[in-house]
């Protein structure tokens, strides 16, 4: 499992707009590079990112090889209620890694 960094406030006021920053360790191999033997290195990137707030989708991204290695994505959401914010990254092999963080809204 790739290393993940997620930065979001642990508690927030109801209706507050919070910033969420995410980063996942991944080479984001473009498929345009050539290896030491001269053969092209096959493409291997994270192409989907999804964020759900208590099961409801709040943000989604479609990524291309032009995203830098260790993709960093920062975005905002409204803190509506206490619960779970889930993040999932899907790569070219259709493998998904999901991370969940708790938020307390008062």
């Amino acid at each position, binding site marked *: 499992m790739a290393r993940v960094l997620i930065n979001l406030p642990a508690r927030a006021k109801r209706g507050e*707009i*919070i910033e969420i*920053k995410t980063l996942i360790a991944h080479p984001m191999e*473009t498929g*345009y*590079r*050539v290896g030491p033997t001269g053969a092209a290195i096959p493409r291997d990137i994270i192409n989907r990112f999804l964020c759900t*707030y208590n099961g*409801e989708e*709040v*943000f*989604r*991204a*479609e*990524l*291309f*090889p*032009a*995203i*830098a*290695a260790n*993709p*960093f*994505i*920062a*975005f*905002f*959401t*409204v803190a*509506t209620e206490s619960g779970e914010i889930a993040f999932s990254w899907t790569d070219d092999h259709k493998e998904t890694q999901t991370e969940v963080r708790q938020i307390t809204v008062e």
Partner: protein
Amino acid sequence: MDERSPDPPTRRLVLLAAAGIGVSRLVRPAAATPAAMEEAIRALVGEATVEHGKVKLELPPIVENGNTVPLTVTVDSPMNEADHVSGIHIFNEKNPQPYIASFDLGPRAGKAVVSTRVRLADSQQVVAIARLSDGSFWSDSADIVVTLAACAEG
């Protein structure tokens, strides 16, 4: 002027041609051009016109390393149910593909601001297009100078 037929191919010309074929086969299979970016944008917006304004694309004007370039897109929008940004799309001119990323958001976002880090293969223009809930498209572009291009070692 004399009436001679054109010179037969000399050894030098033949070698040059062979070298040309060699070079053209080494060139990467795909390279986006401003026309390819135009086409990609057209595929997104269809017949709609893309207006300037509302969107702010922030990129450093000059970077040393094209492998990680910070990029932020800010769209001026109240982000409520009736009037919000539903998508932000980023394109480039000179990478192998014209696409960089697409983000889907909605009124739950609160603020239409997205940041990421991108790779740029050359000094070029980057374009951000925002799709609003009323179906209109707004854009902003930024020119950037890249000293060391991404994928230079490939």
